[in-house]
């Protein structure tokens, strides 16, 4: 009976911890809602469903500080008239705004690759989507663990 009571107390404690965690979510950095994220991607793709492949998105699996995270993208493309990447956009599903940056390439770019450093407010998924001149759309995505969010940076 004593044992059962102890278990009961433990259960209550676990419940209180869960409730506290739930409260903490309320003060987490604002996250763009899923609809805003999907709408931003739709605006970029023109509604074309992105295919997997051709795009390689590189960023760390885990970072301590989200205020400056190196990210690079490379797209398989000849970058000539018949096979040209026009634009590549990066989106982040856990930032206050879904858009991050959009790179516009030309035949003079030689290759469709670029890099920058970005802010990540919390652990989330980063998506890179390339729009080709022929209308096709390809994408890659990576999950990244963020210890300290970069919103206030």
């Amino acid at each position, binding site marked *: 009976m004593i044992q059962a009571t102890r278990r009961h107390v433990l259960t209550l404690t676990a419940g209180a911890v869960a409730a506290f965690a739930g409260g903490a979510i309320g003060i987490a950095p604002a996250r763009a809602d899923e609809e805003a994220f999907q709408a931003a991607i739709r605006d970029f793709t023109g509604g074309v469903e992105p295919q997997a492949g051709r795009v390689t998105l590189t960023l760390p699996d885990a970072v301590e500080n989200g205020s400056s995270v190196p990210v690079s993208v490379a797209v398989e493309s000849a970058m000539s008239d018949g096979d040209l990447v026009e634009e590549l956009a990066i989106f982040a599903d856990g930032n206050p705004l879904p858009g991050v940056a959009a790179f516009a390439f030309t035949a003079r*770019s030689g290759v469709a690759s670029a890099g*920058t450093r970005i*802010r990540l407010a919390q652990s989330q998924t980063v998506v890179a989507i390339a729009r080709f001149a022929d209308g096709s759309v390809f994408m890659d995505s990576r999950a990244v663990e963020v210890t300290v969010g970069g919103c206030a940076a």
Partner: protein
Amino acid sequence: MSSRPRVSVPATAASGDIIEIKALISHTMESGQRRDASGNRIPRKIINAFACTFNGEPVFSCAIEPAVAANPFLSFSARVTESGTFRFTWTDDDGSVYEAEEAIEVS
């Protein structure tokens, strides 16, 4: 606030080479998400666009959102077939345009 651009372009290249260009500008990139001590939202002020041309022809450009880190850094590539000058421009939310240029000798 002074915004000092820095670019890295090889001094020379062979015709047809694809070179890497790096561009950095000092800028706080105030995201518009932060609040001051009194709880008021600090207005957004970022570099919102970057462009690179070679001898007047577009090479690469970038639309930049507040999610790009302070002191925005960009790396990208260019195929060169003749000597000339790269021009770089950064556009600030306040309308300021910061510029830089680098010449390259192509043989």
